Structure formats: C-alpha cells, structure tokens
C-alpha cells in the first residue's frame, strides 16, 4: 500500500515536471539525490565519478520529462538510468590503470563513522580495514551481480523491481543474488 502511494506521488511529481513545474523537479531531486549518489558510489567506488554520474542521471530525468509516461514506478525508471550509466562506466573504465587507482585509493577514501562514543585509533583502523574488505569483495562481483546486491541490500528493492531495473526475469534476479551472496559469504567468511 505504501509503495503504491509512493508510486503515485513520485509519478505525479514527474508529470508536473513534464508540465513545466520546476519545483516538482526540486522535490524529486531532494528525495532521491542521496540514494542515487550512494548507489552509484558503491557501484563505481569513486566519489567524484559517482557524483558526476548522478548529475547525468538527474540531467537525463530532466531532459526526458517531455516523453515521460507514468507506466512504471518512478524509482524503477530512475535506477534503470543510474544502473545503465554505472554499467557503461564500469565497462569503459575497466582497465589496469583504474584497478591500480582503486587499490591506491584505499588510504584516501574517507570512512564514515557513526559510533555512540568516540572510537579509539585502533578501533577506527579495524573498522577501516573491514570496510575496505567489504569494498573489495563487492568490487570483485560481476557488474550485474553487484548492481543486484546493492539494490537488494541498500535500496531494499523487491526482486520484481530489481528485475525491471536490470531488464531481466525475477528468477534471473534470484539466481544473480544467490550467486553474488555465495561469493560474498566465501570472501567475507572470516569477518565476525
């Protein structure tokens, strides 16, 4: 029920954007800016690139306003654009130099800490190492499996919606997720 209300609300906002209402676009941007940026960051694992891609996502949403039809959930359309851009970027940038940059970027990557108390330096280092391992484990997944895991885990999308975003069947998504988590279980088995 909540999902359908959200669907109507977002689609309605987008239809208003289609009618030239800039304020509705601002509302959609405010609502999905963070989640799209975070999804893209976890996909490409580069802050600057993820924001660049997120800019492109919202720019495409704006440019496509004239032809927008509320045939699917707004978020499905939004993540479809985001996933498409991320997969293209990963395909284009998959080379040795990028792999090196990813490996070197470990120390530069800021790690968000949300503790109850100020953690010790040792705790911070342990946490940073754990996050780094997670990052590498996710990065090692094939692109589609990675996208499916990120949408399932962080965006809490249902199988049917992930299937629509990735343009595949629901059973294919189940299979993608099962294999992806299998890989992660092996790679992260030592983490408590």
């Amino acid at each position, binding site marked *: 029920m909540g999902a359908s209300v959200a669907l109507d609300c977002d689609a309605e906002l987008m239809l208003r954007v289609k*009618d*030239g209402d800039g304020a509705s676009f601002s509302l959609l*941007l405010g609502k999905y*800016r*963070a989640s799209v*940026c*975070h999804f893209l*960051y*976890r996909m490409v694992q580069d*802050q600057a690139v993820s*924001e660049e891609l*997120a*800019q492109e996502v*919202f*720019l495409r949403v*704006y*440019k496509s306003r004239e032809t927008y039809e509320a045939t699917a959930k707004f978020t499905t359309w939004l993540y479809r654009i985001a996933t498409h851009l991320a997969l293209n970027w990963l395909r284009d940038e998959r080379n040795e130099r990028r792999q090196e940059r990813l490996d070197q970027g470990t120390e530069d990557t*800021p*790690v*968000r*800490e*949300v503790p109850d108390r100020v953690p010790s330096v040792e705790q911070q280092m342990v*946490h940073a190492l*754990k*996050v780094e*391992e*997670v*990052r590498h*484990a*996710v990065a090692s997944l094939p692109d589609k499996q990675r996208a499916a*895991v990120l949408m399932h*885990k*962080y965006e*809490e999308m249902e*199988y049917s919606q992930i299937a629509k975003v990735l343009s595949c069947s629901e059973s294919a998504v*189940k299979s993608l*997720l*099962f294999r992806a*988590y299998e890989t*992660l*279980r092996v790679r*992260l*088995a030592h*983490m*408590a």
Partner: protein
Amino acid sequence: MDCPIRTDENTDWLLEYSAGRLDREHAALMARHVQTCQECARFVEGQQRVWNALSQWGVDPVSAGFDRRLYRAIDAQPVSWKDRIFRPLQPFWRRAIPLAAACLLIVVGVVLHAPQATLTPAASQAAVEKNEAEQVERTLDDMQMLRELEMTPKQEENTSKSL
C-alpha cells in the same frame, strides 16, 4: 517444508530470512526448518555475517554543490526553437484547451438543438412555383414597358405632322 538448499526452491526465502525481511508466517516456517537443517543453519549464519559486514559500509554525504552544478548543467542545455516559442505559452494552453473544448461543446449543442430551417418538399415546390409566377409577371411588365417606349416616338411624330 522442503529444504530450500537441497531442492533449490525458495532460496530467496533463505536470503530474506537471513536479512530479517521475511514476513512473519514464512519466517516461522523457516525458523522451524533451520532448527532441524544444519546446511540451512550454516547458510543463514554465513549470510547474516555478510549482511552485517555490508551494513558497516557507510558512504560520505553528497557534496554541497551538487544541486548548483546540476542546475547549471540544466541551464546550459540548448533550448530548441519549439521550446522557445511554446514553453512560455504552456500555462496559457493548459487553461485554453479545456476552455476551447467547452466552447466547442456548446457550439455543437446549439447547432444540434436549434430549429431546423430546411424546407419540406411541398413547401419548396410552392416556393419554386411562386418564383416562376413572379418571373413571368416581371417579364410581362418589362414587355409592356418596351411596347410603351416604342409607341412614344411614333405618337410624338404624328403630333408634330398634324401641327
């Protein structure tokens, strides 16, 4: 229930159960099964470890200038000539179209319900006959006038001779 791992069915239940997202009814079924199936218990334990590890992966907030850059990019988009012409008129059209449709409906209604000015066959026949009679009468008048005109010079000639 059948073991999801051995039968390769409902494996998504295992994933959702491990994530704590399965609905209450299925979660209860799953919990009973996991208690008796070592393979599934191991799976759930491993999956929960992965889930917790993924939860630790936080991300930085979006940079402050994100919206400003986006709107700058939007403003930099070339505007087509159609947009240049029709975009300012869009609010007008939005109001004008329903108004025009309403006017059209009214006009159609008036046309359909107005008394018809068409003639019946008998009336049209009578009108034609009346027209013909008038034409004949007018022709006779014209002929009479011509005759009078012809007579007038002769009469004048005779009068002058007699004088």
